[in-house]
């Protein structure tokens, strides 16, 4: 469980990035943190593995106060995949890039080899195994950064804007993967602007604006609330906006994606 209690954070230089954040994320939850550029989303997730420590208040990861633990210790539990892969990649080859954390955490060599094989396969990067990370395309670099975290299997998987620069195929794969690892019990937390992506996976949604949490609830409730979404520079998914115009939403059956709308329309006009 990650508990954020009355957290305030001010960057050196005086920019207040977080104000009175209170939040509990249970083990096994699937959560999206959304909101406009500069809302404090990335600052918040950097609190989860102790990269940043609160100016006031505290963050507890499985009961451990992040102020009293090292980043190395916390990052074994909380794996963060950052937005810009260039900040994360440094090794000579893709294989070494992925092996780095495993070796640091002391995995035996045969296990390192086994995990690298399986993660390269999963992320479709097998053919680049011995190549330099810097010759990959933008989308491929993102996948490599994800692979290098996934490979050590942290309890909490935290992703900062995982869909940026990803094509639809990769997004679908990522979606299936996140849903699957979450179903198997891993806690997934993603920071994203991608409302269409969130409309597909329907996680708990936490909306932020100007360093504060302005809403916290199910995707069903939050994504369709046009005024709330616009107040933090988001837009409802297009299908939701369309369904709102035609009053197609039903209590307990909010329309967020193509499949939702399809079911309702078929029901209205063909079946029923």
């Amino acid at each position, binding site marked *: 469980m990650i508990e954020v209690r009355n957290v305030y954070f001010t960057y050196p230089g005086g920019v207040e990035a977080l104000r009175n954040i209170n939040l509990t994320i249970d083990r096994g939850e699937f959560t999206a943190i959304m909101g406009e550029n500069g809302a404090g989303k990335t600052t918040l997730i950097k609190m989860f593995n102790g990269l940043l420590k609160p100016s006031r208040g505290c963050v507890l990861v499985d009961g451990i106060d992040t102020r009293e633990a090292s980043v190395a210790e916390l990052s074994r539990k909380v794996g963060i995949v950052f937005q810009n892969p260039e900040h994360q990649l440094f090794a000579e080859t893709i294989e070494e890039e992925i092996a780095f954390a495993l070796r640091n955490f002391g995995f035996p060599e045969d296990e390192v080899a086994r995990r690298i094989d399986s993660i390269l396969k999963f992320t479709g990067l097998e053919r680049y195994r011995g190549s330099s990370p810097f010759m990959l395309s933008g989308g491929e670099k993102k996948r490599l950064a994800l692979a290098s975290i996934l490979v050590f299997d942290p309890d909490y998987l935290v992703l900062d804007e995982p869909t940026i620069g990803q094509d639809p195929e990769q997004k679908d794969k990522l979606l299936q993967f996140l849903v699957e690892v979450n179903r198997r019990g891993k806690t997934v937390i993603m920071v994203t602007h991608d409302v269409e992506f969130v409309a597909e996976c329907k996680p708990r949604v936490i909306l932020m604006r100007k360093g504060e949490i302005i809403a916290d609830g199910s995707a069903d409730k939050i994504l369709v609330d046009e005024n709330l979404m616009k107040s933090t520079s988001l837009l409802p998914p297009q299908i939701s906006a369309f369904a709102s115009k035609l009053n197609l939403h039903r209590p307990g059956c909010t329309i967020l994606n193509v499949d939702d709308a399809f079911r309702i329309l078929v029901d209205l*006009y063909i079946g029923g």
Partner: protein
Amino acid sequence: MSIVSIKNLWFRYRGSDNWVLRDVSLKVDRGEFIVITGKSGCGKTTLCRCLNGLIPHFYEGELKGSITVAGLDVTKTPVSRMASIVGMVFQNPSSQLFMLTVERDVAFGPENLGVPRDEILRRIDWALNMLGISDLRFRAPHELSGGQQQRVAIAAILAMQPQIIVLDEPTAYLDPYTSLSIFNLLKDLNSKLGLTVILVEHKLELASSLADRIIVMDGGRIVVEGGSREVFMKDLSVYGVKPPSIPRLFLKLMGHGFRFKEIPLTVEEAAEILREVYLKVDRG
């Protein structure tokens, strides 16, 4: 009148056996708004690099075929000359901005083109005004938000008065509302200035209704091109491309016996079509 004419273009980067562009032929008319899409690694960024001469002058490799932009053979024209004709905007605006004030960043391009001082000042006024960021003139670019930075990057390109603007996923890092405002801005520049726009995008949700033509690439080739509605009617999944959710819903409905004259692109069109065709039927 074509402003871009590419004929049977093949390209591979130095040190690689793999042809990244394979027999690409493309004509773009002056004033067209083109969206290029396709999965990661399909060659769309490489194609853009051919338009302003970064290929073959900066990124070396083997090139076959011809690239003519504004009447110039790109392979024989210096990049500095091409820069005044084709402006490029990238995903991450912070990689493009490096001066201490917005004004200096916008002045940088025309200064390098040897534009006289008075004219540079006039262009700064004009470009900042076009982008609605005159109030940011003396701010430091690195202190601005992502959306503001991308506007500055576009203003810096406009100040060179290019004939074509090429944007490679310019809103990737921006929130949806800001992305929408950037797309609307591009449409505005396109219709008011007649600027030719070539936009590389995965996010077809917001971009497809603005485009005169969508080009789908796969494996270094152009595999589908046409108007948005026409392109979305085709099976794009084989190329790893997914139409936006609204056309996708309507295609799915058509596959199940619904009849529509055409596929909508926007929320408004979709609501209108469904309202006309179906909602007059009593829903009992």
